[in-house]
């Protein structure tokens, strides 16, 4: 097992207790990337970002440079930062928001300059009370330092940044729902097309939406150059990425590792990373990219952490979360809990999603409670087929947003990998792991 000695691009300051302060930020190269950017033309900054193949870290993995190039030309345009982080078991942006808010702010200003947008909004999930405090304080200090506001560092470029709190709704992470929420409405995803807010976004104006981690890479890219970034990783998956490792591992936490050069095995077992599974237990399955991602089994741990590699294997790196389940895990309960999440968070606009999630949750619950029927497995797949025809990967969509088509991922994986365990619940009329506590 090897863990490459790639530089820490977004977590370099986390060793300091005061990593969130302007003083520490300036003492560790802070705002140098922005100064560099302002000495270049906006086109050249955009080119530099396009050159590094910075794949979006929010879930969809769309290259930032390409997204930026689609921004419709208009007198008013916006950058919106997605800090809603609510995908189950994803907790990397939380770290960046609380521990290195200036890095985010600097990334935002660099992006605004490249895009020549007029105002940026940083949308942070409402539960991050400390995160909201820290980012707002960073914005205040950055104004004082001349890094935001009028005539930034004497460059003749000006912007304002507004920090905006959410109020508890997973769906607001979907970028069009986020824009609705930012407009003061219910977080209902918008009907596509247009597929990108770059055409019609906030208040109907062209808007780029980027994830917190995506933008936090920019100061380093500008300071160190695109070549240093693309020297890391492989293929389209360049640089490093944050992985939030959770579940049955010795050391759950957020790890920044080099893409592709690191495997799931490294992440889960390396002593300096996950440290393996506690209690001498064995790996049963793991979820590679958030609750929306199909599961992997122990035979897939050698897969590299690369977007295309994981995609070809039938799942996704998604939001950069890895949930490890050991051999004591009841997979019916796990699939039920994930489905319950989707049911609770469905915004309710689309019938297959609103109704389907509820039915799936109830059926899984009754199997877990030992009241399932043999025909339930077929029924689960049938309802899943209504949500994502064919239940293939990547999923087909019948709904306004991909929350709906993501629901079958865990159910189909669990049934495919552990059919016998479902059947045992049904045959024995109980869960082999004992009755589940109700929720």
């Amino acid at each position, binding site marked *: 097992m090897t863990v490459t000695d790639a530089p820490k691009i977004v977590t370099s300051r986390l060793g300091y207790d005061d990593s969130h302060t302007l003083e520490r930020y300036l003492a560790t190269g802070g705002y140098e990337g922005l100064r560099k950017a302002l000495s270049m033309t906006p086109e050249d900054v955009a080119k530099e970002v396009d050159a590094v193949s910075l794949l979006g870290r929010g879930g969809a993995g769309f290259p930032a440079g390409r997204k930026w190039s689609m921004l419709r030309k208009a007198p008013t345009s916006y950058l919106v930062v997605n800090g809603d*982080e609510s995908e189950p078991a994803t907790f990397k942006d939380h770290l960046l928001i609380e521990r290195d808010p200036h890095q985010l702010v600097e990334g935002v200003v660099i992006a605004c300059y490249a895009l020549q947008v007029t105002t940026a909004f940083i949308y942070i999930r409402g*539960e991050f009370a400390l995160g909201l405090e820290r980012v707002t304080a960073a914005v205040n200090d950055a104004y004082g330092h001349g890094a935001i506001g*009028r005539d930034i560092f004497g460059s003749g470029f000006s912007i*304002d940044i507004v920090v905006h709190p959410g109020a508890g709704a997973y769906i607001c992470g979907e970028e069009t729902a986020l824009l609705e929420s930012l407009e*003061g409405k219910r977080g209902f995803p918008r009907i596509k097309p247009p597929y990108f807010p770059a055409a019609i976004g906030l208040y109907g104006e062209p808007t780029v939406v980027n994830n917190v981690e995506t933008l936090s890479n920019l100061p380093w890219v500008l300071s160190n150059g695109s070549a240093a970034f693309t020297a890391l990783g492989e293929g389209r998956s360049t640089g490093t990425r944050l992985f939030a490792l959770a579940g049955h591992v010795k050391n759950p936490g957020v790890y920044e590792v080099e893409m592709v050069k690191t495997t799931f095995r490294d992440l889960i077992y390396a002593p300096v990373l996950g440290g393996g599974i506690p209690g001498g237990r064995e790996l049963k399955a793991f979820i590679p990219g958030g609750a929306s991602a199909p599961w992997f089994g122990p035979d897939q741990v050698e897969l590299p952490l690369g977007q295309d590699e994981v995609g070809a294997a039938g799942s996704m790196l998604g939001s950069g979360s890895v*949930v490890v389940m050991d051999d004591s895990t009841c997979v019916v309960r796990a699939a039920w*809990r994930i489905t319950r999440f989707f049911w609770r968070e469905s915004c309710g606009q689309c019938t297959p999603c609103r109704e389907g999630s509820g039915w799936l949750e109830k059926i899984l619950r009754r199997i877990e409670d030992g009241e399932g029927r043999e025909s339930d497995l077929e029924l689960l797949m049938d309802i899943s087929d209504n949500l994502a025809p064919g239940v293939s990967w990547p999923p087909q969509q019948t709904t306004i947003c991909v929350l709906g088509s993501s629901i079958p991922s865990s159910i189909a994986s669990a049934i495919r990998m552990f059919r016998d365990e479902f059947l045992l619940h049904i045959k024995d009329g109980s869960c082999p792991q004992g009755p589940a506590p109700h929720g």
Partner: protein
Amino acid sequence: MTQSHLAPEVMARARDIVALYPHPRSALIPLCHLAQEQDGWLRPEAMAEIAELVGITPAEVLGTASFYDMLHTEEVGTYVVTLCTNIACMLRGAYELLHHAEESLGIRTGSTTADGVFTLEDAECLADCGRAPCLQVNHRFFGDVSPEGFDKIVDDLRAGRLADEVPHHGTLVRTERDGGLRVEAETITAERRATAAAMAERAATAAAASEAKANG
């Protein structure tokens, strides 16, 4: 003049927030957080004033607020305990902890203790899964919570020993923007126009150069 329900200092902060946005309605969620900071929950009187501040009807405020889990349209306890039971926390004993919490507080999930001190909720992922099982009290995090740890948090809250860590309601209670927007619309328009012109000129020069090259 009748006195407003929102206290003058809350009203002043609310107006500052409205001024940050191109359209007042965008301030709706932050203003709801402010109202909860004052009242603990969203009282109808507060929603009526928020409606006025952002230029919509009280029904629209309620209709929007009711979409969001953090906005309480009914009264809640002094401390809202939200315990995550999503996958990563469940794998590390969240439901066992939730049961313990119900027994220890003597209430079911979703309700408030008779003395009005605690409301218990089961939450979706709070993005602190590295310290599972975890919970929030008035949106301040507690990680790696054992049943004994839970009881200690409850005791400490009752005894006022966590007053520094866990403030009163309202997720923005310690968030204060110093100053409003700094850049006037005209400045932005002028700058952007100048940059767009310069960019167009660079593009034209580059196009001419490449054409000259192609021609010989």
